[in-house]
């Protein structure tokens, strides 16, 4: 599903975010990417949805070398990927429902599909009753659910979540992670970057640990940190 081969990323300001990273993620996996801030977790995700290009090495998503995609191909790739951020990235002047419809419109979904599809994903994330709420009227956890709903509205095979619980209280964090697990159980591959030790330790999923831009641990059913 996702493959990194010897990927190095050096930003134009000289920051070396990733150093010779190689990894492989299989369909249906749930993967935590952990490590302190600034170790290249976000960069790793951004290389997958082709927001950045690797300085060297190859990133393959859905058997396609994403470094060779033309703009049209990038758009097509992103339609088959869901991305969720710490801050949700919702449009503040549109309701939860409109935020999802916006994403559908952008990719040219037929008009008669907009409402059923948007309502279906909102129900899926447990916000069917709050469709007409503005983002500011929603709690942080609810906003993040809307963001997840938007990310999965196209039924992407792969969902990327960059610190989805980073600004949430423990309860909401837990609900979000459960939602992501549930999505994973329906067959979607999920990649989550996180700092949240508790969640990683309870879920015991595959853990890829980054340090200084390198993979220092890749463990199935792992913990946040190696037991001393």
């Amino acid at each position, binding site marked *: 599903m996702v493959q990194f081969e010897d990927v190095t990323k050096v930003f134009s300001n000289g920051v070396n975010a990733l150093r010779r990273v190689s990894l492989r993620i299989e369909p249906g996996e749930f993967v935590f990417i952990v490590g302190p801030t600034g170790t290249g977790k976000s960069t790793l995700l951004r290389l997958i949805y082709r927001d950045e290009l690797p300085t060297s090495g190859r990133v393959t998503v859905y058997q396609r070398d994403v470094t060779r995609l033309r703009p049209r191909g990038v*758009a097509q790739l*992103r339609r088959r990927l869901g991305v969720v951020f710490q801050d949700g*990235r919702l449009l503040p002047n549109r309701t939860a429902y409109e935020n999802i419809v916006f994403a559908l419109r952008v*990719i*040219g979904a037929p*008009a008669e599909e907009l409402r059923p599809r948007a309502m279906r994903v909102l129900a899926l994330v447990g916000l069917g009753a709050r469709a007409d709420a503005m983002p500011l009227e929603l709690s942080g956890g609810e906003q993040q659910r809307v963001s997840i709903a938007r990310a999965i509205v196209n039924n992407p095979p792969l969902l990327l979540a960059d610190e989805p619980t980073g600004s949430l209280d423990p309860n909401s964090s837990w609900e979000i992670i459960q939602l992501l697990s549930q999505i994973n159980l329906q067959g979607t591959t999920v990649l989550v970057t996180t700092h949240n030790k508790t969640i990683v330790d309870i879920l015991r999923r595959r853990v890829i640990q980054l340090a200084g831009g390198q993979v220092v641990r890749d463990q199935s059913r792992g913990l946040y940190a190696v037991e001393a």
Partner: protein
Amino acid sequence: MASRIRRVYAVVGRAISFAADAGTSFRRNGLMTVAAVTTIMVALLVVGTAVLLGLNLSHVAATLEAQVEVVAFLRDGLSSSALTRVQETIVAIPEVASVQFVSRADALGRLRQRLGDSAAFSDLESSNPLADSLEVRLVDPARARVVAAAISDVSGVDEVTYGAQVLDRLLALIQGVRVLAGVLTLFLSGVALVVVVNTIRLTVIARQREIEIMRLVGATRWFVQWPLLLEGVLEGTVAAGGATVVLAGLYALGAARVASALPFFPLVSVTSGVQSVAIVVAATGVIVGAAGSLIAVRRFVTS
């Protein structure tokens, strides 16, 4: 069939929503948009003025050109066979279109008509000071100087005049106006372009989050850029409309003044003048608007 109708429906719907987007940011960046439209309009006013001025000068030049002729004054007491010979020699010059003989009596008659009948003329009738002449029309009035020189070499011809001096000056003036207008237009278009780029940049900033999300969920480049391009074109079009109205009004007013002060001045008609101006101004406005937004999109909406 049904799917085709649906597709048409979708395209129309999308066009409407793009136009609505462009309209929204038109309103949102109110002041900056007004500044952009005004700047483009000023540039277009200069362009339009230059077009009208150029059109009229060319028109005057064309009118004068059609009237340019070489006049060959003949030596006194030329026999009719000598006259025929002179006429034939001149007609044989390739640049000559036609030759017409004007007798000294005819010439006096014309002069009399032009200056008005006065007693002085009756005196002149007995001792006409004018000479017989040949009026020579040319195929290409620009060649007047050369033809005049050739005719003056024909024996029997006393003196040659041609009315091209005025034309030469007029042509030089037209050239000058063109260059000046070109430079001014270029400069003002450049200024307008910068302002357009900035309004589009403001829109991009105002819509940054939307654009970011569009990209994230897989919008094509065109989908993101269309409304922005449309916005610039819209600004150019509105400015062109305004400039055309102003120019049309001023030209109609000016033309009326000139017509009453100088009835025989060959002025380009208001309809055809405004028509030409509208076309040039609209094209320039749209081009400036489109180019400005294109530059802004390239610079501020990175892929």
